[in-house]
């Protein structure tokens, strides 16, 4: 199903179901939030509504946004011809809405935009308030905008971005540069060899076609090597799982959402509610996260992962001393086949190689024409201008 709740049939913005809208069922695709209607709206939603945008409804997402495209939603995933589909990307691609707000946690909206051939921007961490996001990995997740083209993305971004006192990690600036008019001629881009090599042929063709288009606009494109991707993926798996494990603990059947009917005492409420209310991928992430934070494991897992994150971030940002843009695949394939959901944990973390650099380092990523452009923090205008220039050719 595409919508968990339809709010306004004429609405022009879809909102992923892990972003809160006041008094509207918000489940994050999980049974455990059965019947949960929040008391307040996410800051990004409020800002859009204040500017006259109308929310069409809550788009279905995979449980807590952890999966590839939305296939783990308790409320039924989208699938056609043996392919899995993403709800927000579907309603944007079909023109039902002008744009969608999606939480980029593990790269799900980036993959969705790539396979549906729409545009998605994951902005720099801390530029869009996370107030009202059903959180998993607070140190990385960001609300981003999905739309048909860079222009629409820029328009919606300029409404939702900017400091919010309610988010203690929010960047102090009130507004950011989302202009499409940056002169891109003479800019330098690079392709990370390891990422290109890992993708299938159809994706390689897209990346190389985009390379030609950039070159035609006067951007030089070189190839570089970046050896830290496996390390980044391991750190990512540890950090995402640990934070998610902690953030999902509050769903315990005591206060709201689903509660088991099978209990005699508080321990039963905890165990049975969570056993019955959470899906397999969420459970796997919780177990893994619980392990890496436990006594004796913290130093060798979590603490080490944080140090790896710093090293990866520093090395990745070094690329931007020489280049303005990184051109990369967003996915390993241009469509995802349905798969055995018992394998979701491995699938999700192996597919993270394309999205992990921007997620770990908090830098922006723009998916357009089925490929991904990366830039240094706060350089969204370069991403948007390049994508817009290619679109206009």
């Amino acid at each position, binding site marked *: 199903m595409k919508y968990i709740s339809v709010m306004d049939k004429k609405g022009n913005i879809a909102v992923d179901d892990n972003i809160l809208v006041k008094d509207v069922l918000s489940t994050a695709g999980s049974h455990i939030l059965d019947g949960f209607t929040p008391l307040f709206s996410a800051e990004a939603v409020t800002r859009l509504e204040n500017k006259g945008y109308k929310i069409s409804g809550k788009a279905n997402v995979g449980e807590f946004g952890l999966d590839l495209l939305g296939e783990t939603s308790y409320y039924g995933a989208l699938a056609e011809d043996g392919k899995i589909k993403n709800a927000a990307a579907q309603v944007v691609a079909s023109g039902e809405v002008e744009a969608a707000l999606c939480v980029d946690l593990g790269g799900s909206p980036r993959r969705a935009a790539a396979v549906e051939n729409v545009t998605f921007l994951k902005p720099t961490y801390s530029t869009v308030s996370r107030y009202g996001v*059903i959180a998993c990995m607070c140190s990385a997740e960001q609300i981003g905008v999905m739309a048909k083209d860079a222009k629409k993305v820029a328009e919606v971004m300029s409404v939702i971005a900017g400091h919010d006192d309610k988010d203690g990690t929010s960047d102090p600036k009130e507004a950011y540069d989302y202009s499409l008019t940056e002169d891109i001629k003479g800019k330098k881009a690079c392709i990370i060899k390891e990422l290109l090599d890992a993708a299938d042929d159809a994706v390689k063709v897209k990346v190389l076609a985009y390379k030609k288009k950039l070159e035609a606009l006067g951007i030089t494109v070189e190839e570089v090597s970046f050896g830290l991707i496996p390390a980044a993926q391991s750190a990512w798996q540890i950090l995402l799982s640990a934070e998610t494990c902690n953030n999902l603990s509050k769903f315990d059947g005591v206060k709201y959402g689903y509660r088991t009917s099978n209990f005699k005492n508080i321990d039963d409420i905890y165990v049975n509610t969570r056993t019955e209310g959470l899906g397999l991928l969420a459970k796997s992430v919780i177990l893994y996260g619980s392990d890496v934070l436990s006594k004796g494991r913290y130093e060798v897992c979590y603490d080490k992962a944080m140090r790896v994150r710093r090293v990866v971030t520093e090395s990745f940002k070094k690329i931007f001393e020489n280049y303005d843009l990184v051109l990369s695949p967003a996915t390993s394939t241009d469509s995802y086949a349905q798969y055995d959901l018992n394998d979701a944990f491995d699938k999700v973390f192996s597919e993270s190689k394309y999205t992990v650099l921007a997620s770990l380092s908090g830098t922006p990523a723009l998916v357009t024409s089925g490929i991904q452009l990366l830039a240094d923090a706060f350089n969204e205008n370069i991403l948007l201008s390049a994508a817009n220039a290619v679109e206009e050719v």
Partner: protein
Amino acid sequence: MAYEIVIGLETHVELSTKSKLFCSCGGHSEANEPNDCVCPACCGMPGMLPVVNKQAIELAVKAGLMLNCKINQYTTFDKKSYYYPDLPAAYQTTQWFNPICVEGLVDVETSIGISKIGIKQIHVEEDAGKLVHTNDSSLVDYNRTSVPLIEIVTKPDFRSAEEVISYLKTLKSKLQFAGISECEEGAMRCDINISVRPEGSDILGVRTEIKNMSSLTSIEEAINKEAIRHIDALERRTEVLVQETRRWDDVKKRTFPMRNKETAADYRYFPDPNVMPVVIDDKWLQEIKDSMPKTIDEQVERYMALGLSQREAAAIVSEPILIELLDDMVSKDIDVKAAAGWILTDYLGILKKNNIQAKDIALDGEKLAWIIKTAQSGEITRNTGKTVLSAVILENADPKTYCEQNNLMVKTDLDLIKKVVVKAIEANPKAVEDYKAGKEKALLAIFGFAMRELRGAGSPDLIRQILLESLAE
């Protein structure tokens, strides 16, 4: 064999902040109903983010300064995970890796002298809610959830229950003095770590922890009872001591072990990514230091440096209200010596005469300042000033209006004064005669008459001058 008791304390104290640690809920102590004082953040709703309460940071720093701690100018918050219905987010935000204050020292006085107790650290954390059990269910009240606490952890430096009790009393008075915590009855909660060892040994014995103690009497009893249990175990092999967590049974007067399940938790601490590290820069730290209340000795010194005598300074410092009043006058550009005179002589005099306590009336500093300034400029006399102050204190009069209505402003009108002087000379022929015969004192009677005519509000200098001129004619 003689044994030595070794004790370390962890004390939880609620900070006197206006709002909770990470949300703007406040006033939980006045909450009438359960869950009166909650918001989506402090009841663990998804989508809410913590915003650190700056005042809680400042109060924790003050606690550190009171206990001679080193302040960590870079301090961070961490998540401590466990499941319990009184903990709505299923984690408590606390400071595990970088506590705000470390390495302190506090003097504790006992019957055998002064002991120095080391403070290992002070950290800030949020309180949990409360469970209310009924016959067939349990209810949760989140009013206390996320109320800011500090936990003050000592080194194992106590050697007797007496030292512990004295420390807790000292702690309470220091925290109250600096406005850090109200330390309400039962609101200081202690965990007591205790072991015994042969006197002279420097190896620590098996340690047990007695959790969640608040009454001083129980703390003293529990320490003594637990020490005897340990010594019996060592001396008479009554039992084998194990490192464990125990509770105090206030009825049976003994400690008993807590269920293992309650203590075996792995809290899975990790840094809270939603709370940015708090950086207390030098400027902020200095502001906090400057806002600390001064000790009595420091206050006396400060006033003597401003120009008061030791006696005056000590008299002012004896009452916080007087300190406040004097500082207020000084801030209004009134000479400290003059202000102290008005406060100590006139203000206190009026209070004493009318049997009023200083704390029972609120003297408006603006009014006192008006009286002092007006008297200093000569627009009212010193005596009139005292009358007006009395009216301000007793009737809450407005001094300016009072002077105008009662015609108390000093008269400098020459014609008026001349008229009054003529009248005074005519009314006192005997005094005039005496004066002219050389009795200078006789002048006072004529002067007094004139002043009375002007209801005490004539310019003394002018009256005297005109009187002398008139008599010389």
